[in-house]
């Protein structure tokens, strides 16, 4: 299982993904620049990512608290998500996303 992540410098990385993990944890464990200051409890917006359009429909809809938190970022787009709220599963094998500038530590 893989996810494909473009970092803030435009570099592409293929990460081994683990079922059941938050996508944020997979990115952090790999060592890319992701602050995730609340540790994955949807209480900040520092694991902000842009999900490739092709994958948007495959994700669960965001809850209100994720929506609220994303509002605290200044670089929100229509395809913005918090990667701590994306849980890795078979269906997301190949998930492609880009790290937001506001996720930098």
């Amino acid at each position: 299982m893989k996810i494909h992540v473009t970092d803030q410098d435009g570099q592409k990385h293929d990460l081994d993904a683990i079922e059941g993990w938050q996508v944020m944890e997979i990115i952090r464990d790999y060592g890319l620049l992701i602050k995730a200051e609340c540790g994955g409890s949807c209480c900040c917006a520092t694991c902000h990512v842009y999900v490739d359009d092709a994958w948007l429909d495959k994700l669960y809809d965001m809850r209100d608290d994720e929506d609220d938190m994303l509002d605290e970022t200044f670089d929100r787009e229509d395809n913005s998500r918090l990667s701590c709220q994306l849980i890795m599963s078979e269906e997301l094998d190949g998930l492609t996303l880009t790290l937001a500038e506001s996720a930098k530590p």
Partner: protein
Amino acid sequence: MSERHVTDVIIIGAGPCGLFTVFELGLLDLKCHLVDILDRPGGQCAELYPEKPIYDIPAYPVISGQDLTDRLMEQIEPFNPTFHFSQMASSIQKSDNGNWELTTDFDTVLEAPVIVIAAGGGSFMPKKPPIPNLENFEGESVFYAVRQMDAFKDHDLVIAGGGDSALDWTLNLQPLVKSLTLVHRRDDFRAHPDSVNKMRALVDAGKINLVIGNINEVTGEGSQISSLNVKTKDQGDITLNCSRFLAFYGLTMKLGPVAEFGLNLHENLIPVDTEKFQTSEPGIFAVGDINHYPGKLKLILSGFHEAALMAQEAFRIIHPDKKLRFQYTTSSSDLQKKLGVKDDEKAA
């Protein structure tokens, strides 16, 4: 406003590790003053996840951030620590008598032989919107917090944000100002519903102006703001004339002035030894998420352990002539007395 206190130990940060540090030092009869940028104890537990459950606190299968904070406050109550809230530790220096002197951004000066840095991920600082040149106006006509309401009296005020801070100050400042415009990204507010209702009533009564959009430009002269540009979906660009701007876009953690204390740093963390948890400066310790050593895990329980060991060395520094006797709270009547245990509560 300037105050001066002399104590045994200064603790920077009143999160769980800072609070438990008071307990471990208290058992050794050491008095503490704590400084925290937030207006209440708990650190990340209070600010980021008061309601979220934590599952890895020993003996608590589940406890919320707020409950953990409340329990720790109860546990350290016998030691009567002094808190300096809403203040940031801005600098430290060695005084002539060999003690450390810490100065806050409110000019409070604390003097002690020992400083413990328990600052977690750093200071909670306001998030600043990426509006070009906004910094030119900060502190004069653009603010991220309200310290004195009078500073906004009779002004044309713009408030930005959708959370409790933005709504609370909208309601509190409205009677004082000349005009007030609230700007939020979308027409949905996560502040307390009661505040949102009150705000909407004021909008309906024509007492405040509500604009949905993104602020992207500021104009003014010198440090005096004169207008903000808001990009809206329905009405295009709107110019808001104003003389004060308050932005509430949430908080983020930054290491802040601790980085300038002259301590060795390792990727924004403070390296310590694993016997005393002392930094590169004798008498300055670091516990909890902010420290670094081989094998470090950022867990609350690691910080508790670090506080206990650190306290032993703090005692030796403060009382070089006294012998440190290790005692258990279960058996030592001396410790139980300090904790305020009453005779009838003791085990038979």
